[in-house]
């Protein structure tokens, strides 16, 4: 009988004592055939990455190890083979690409040398032959100027190029299985679309089985043949992509898919005409002199924001969408005066605020507040939650007892237990921390709220909750909101109007529905075309 390419049977991976559960992975059964793509989907902590690592024999032993079950690879049990055989399998028969190519590549070795290593350790070839092979590989993954890339160091390439180089390296020896652990999560959507296309192209060329780990159902819809959904270490549902995405059986799968924001923009709400915030011709450039007293070599100048003009009307939500490096976060930081603008005018309620001194700015701070991206970096780990929230009012001269009362009220508004007041941030999960961050931004009763990628660090189900919460408080407190995101699905659900940014410029603005229906600018069209799973309609 012919053996299956990959056959994971009844796999248990044990976690060290003191972890939140005994097994990272329990009773996992997965199969992968030649030329097939199996997507393992799940939220953070579901055990999907550890499963992939177990296949490579890369578990962080001795703390975490396989205690039961087998991982069959062409009839051979990977959990039982000796170390030399495992080394042989790794790289030449099973290879892996990682989420962050910058950390997966060695920063002090050129790309050419790193690809060369793969050949040197696994096959007997002359140096010139190896170099020729490497150049061919780089050409296969559509990197421009392969000869030049061979000599380049990882930091000289863009994120997408690095991931291409990683793929070239992973596929160097034509492995039978490619394991991809969230390979596009750190990339922009347009780059992601290209990388996904590349992976399926390469797969088709050499009939590779791909085990693809992801949290994004859009990506699943685009590339998977079969899907396995993991929750808390268990595979709760598996089947073909049509079955799982369109007729999910398990309640967890249904909840996950239900939480994926739909690409159909929501109906625009009636828009008031009074602008509460206006940005006119704002620019911001980084760089300039460096070194001793500014006499050193001039640093590279980066024009992060170029001549941006925007209006935010009372009660509306303006989305600023764009890829990384488009200047959307810099713009937000200029508006809230975390950075000074080079030129241009920012006015709140008709009063220009970007030229005010720090002291004169202080009363205006209550008008405009911000919710940050990273729930783990945005709360001071040494201060209790109640005090974090009350800090704003106290700084603005409201007395402590009143500020505390307001903090308690906000804690209940954002849906946290009232005992949270006396706890430290590390006792909370990412979603709860984001709620604390929202409570803090509301403590000053602002009129304008800037949300900088507030949900991009969160799992999809938590993301839906936080978006609902933002919606609720926006209506309750009559906020006008600037919502910064790279995710067009999220933008479609939240924003009344959109501004699309690229290279520091706003290339297009308009009502969300109009932009989705007929994008004017070619870049907007590219962005929309690159959204993963755009042909898959969420039925909800």
């Amino acid at each position, binding site marked *: 009988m012919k053996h299956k390419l990959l056959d994971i049977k009844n796999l248990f991976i044990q976690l060290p004592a003191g972890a939140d559960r005994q097994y990272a992975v329990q009773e996992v059964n997965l199969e992968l055939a030649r030329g097939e793509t199996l997507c393992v989907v799940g939220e953070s902590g579901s055990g999907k990455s550890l499963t992939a690592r177990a296949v490579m024999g890369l578990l962080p032993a001795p703390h975490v190890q396989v205690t039961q079950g087998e991982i069959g690879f062409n009839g051979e049990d990977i959990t039982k083979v000796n170390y030399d055989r495992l080394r042989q399998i790794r790289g030449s028969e099973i290879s892996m690409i990682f989420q962050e190519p910058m950390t997966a590549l060695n920063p002090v070795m050129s790309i050419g040398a790193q690809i060369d290593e793969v050949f040197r350790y696994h096959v007997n070839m002359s140096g010139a032959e190896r170099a020729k092979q490497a150049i061919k590989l780089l050409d296969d993954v559509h990197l421009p100027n392969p000869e030049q890339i061979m000599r380049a160091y990882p930091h000289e390439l863009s994120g997408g190029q690095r991931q291409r180089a990683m793929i070239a390296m992973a596929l160097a020896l034509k492995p039978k299985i490619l394991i991809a652990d969230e390979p596009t999560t750190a990339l922009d959507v347009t780059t992601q679309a290209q990388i996904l296309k590349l992976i399926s192209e390469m797969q088709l060329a050499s009939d590779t089985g791909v085990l693809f780990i992801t949290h994004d159902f859009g990506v699943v819809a685009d590339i998977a043949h079969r899907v396995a959904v993991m929750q808390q270490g268990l595979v709760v549902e598996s089947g073909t992509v049509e079955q799982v995405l369109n007729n999910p059986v398990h309640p967890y799968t249904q909840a996950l898919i239900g939480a994926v924001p739909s690409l159909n923009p929501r109906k625009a709400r009636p828009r008031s005409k009074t602008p509460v915030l206006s940005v006119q011709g704002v620019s911001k450039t980084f760089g300039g002199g460096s070194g001793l007293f500014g006499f050193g070599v001039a640093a590279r100048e980066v024009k992060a924001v170029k001549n941006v003009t925007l209006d935010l009307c009372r009660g509306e939500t303006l989305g600023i969408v764009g890829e990384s490096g488009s200047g959307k976060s810099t713009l937000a930081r200029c508006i809230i005066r975390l950075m000074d603008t080079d030129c241009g005018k920012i006015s709140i309620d008709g009063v220009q605020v970007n030229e005010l001194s720090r002291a004169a700015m202080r009363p205006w701070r209550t008008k405009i*507040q911000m919710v940050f991206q990273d729930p783990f970096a945005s709360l001071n780990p040494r201060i209790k939650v109640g005090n974090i929230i009350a*800090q704003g009012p106290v*700084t603005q001269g409201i007395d402590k007892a009143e500020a505390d009362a307001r903090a308690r009220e906000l804690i209940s508004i954002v849906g946290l237990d009232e005992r949270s007041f006396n706890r430290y941030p590390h006792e909370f999960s990412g979603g709860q921390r984001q709620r604390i961050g929202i409570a803090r931004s509301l403590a000053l009763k602002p009129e304008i709220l800037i949300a900088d990628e507030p949900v991009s660090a969160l799992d999809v189900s938590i993301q839906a909750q936080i978006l609902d919460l933002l919606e609720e408080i926006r209506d309750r407190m009559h906020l006008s909101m600037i919502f910064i995101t790279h995710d067009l699905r999220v933008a479609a659900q939240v924003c009344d109007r959109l501004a699309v940014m690229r290279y520091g410029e706003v290339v297009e603005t308009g009502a969300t529905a109009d932009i989705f229906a007929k994008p004017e600018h070619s870049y907007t069209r590219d962005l929309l075309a690159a959204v993963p799973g755009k042909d898959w309609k969420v039925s909800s």
Partner: protein
Amino acid sequence: MNEFWSRYARNRSAVMGLGILVLVIFMAAIASLIFPDDPFRLAGIPLSVPGANGFFLGSDTLGRDVASGIAHGAKTSLLIGLVATFAAVFIGIIFGAFSGYYGGLVDDILMRITEIFQTIPSFVFAILLVAIMKPSIESIVIAITVVSWPGVARLVRGEFLSLKNREFVQACHTIGMSDMRIIVREILPNCLSPIIVVGSLMVATAILIESGLAFLGLGDPNIMSWGFQIGAGRTMLRSAWWVCTFPGIAILVTVLAINLVGEGLNDALNPRLREGN
């Protein structure tokens, strides 16, 4: 606190170091009870071997009791180590915090000043300072402080550089918090762990510098210290080994103990190691 102790106690040698250190502190505290007399007093026959003539650890060329000197010297060493370290950490935090937080010109000026102090070999600099100021316990503390603060300033500056751009600090800016409050209440508590670790190791260095100065005759002439004892006995090293050896062992053991404690604190306070295990 219990959690902290259990992490600290995982490192056995750190616990041993702490034990020795407590013993040394205890010895310094009860020095006047076991040896009520002035350690400079000529207590009996010069150059008695350990155990003879009622001298537990022998006596030196002038008949001073070596054991009494070690007990009283412990007080001096620990006092100088602690005071100089606190002063150095204080100055270092001020320099490091301002230069890291404000950056730009402030950083340039403060760091160039720091570098001036760092470029002079520290022990030579300390000798020079004590020689200029006349040897006394104050001048020794000042000299040790002056040569040790730049390291703390560099460390604190690095911590501030990485913390000042964290989102929680930006959130403080958006509510209009003053710089002073952000520095003292928000950022500083987050860099206490490395400061404590470096500080604990600095105590050991301070004790060594003090001993070195006293050995060269630059100690306070009215205060007994381990370095002074070694300096007084160095001419007799071959005929009366005990005069130098026991104070030397005292320095070795104490400095080792403090280093072990510092290492243990580092393991216990370092969040990366915490996750690893």
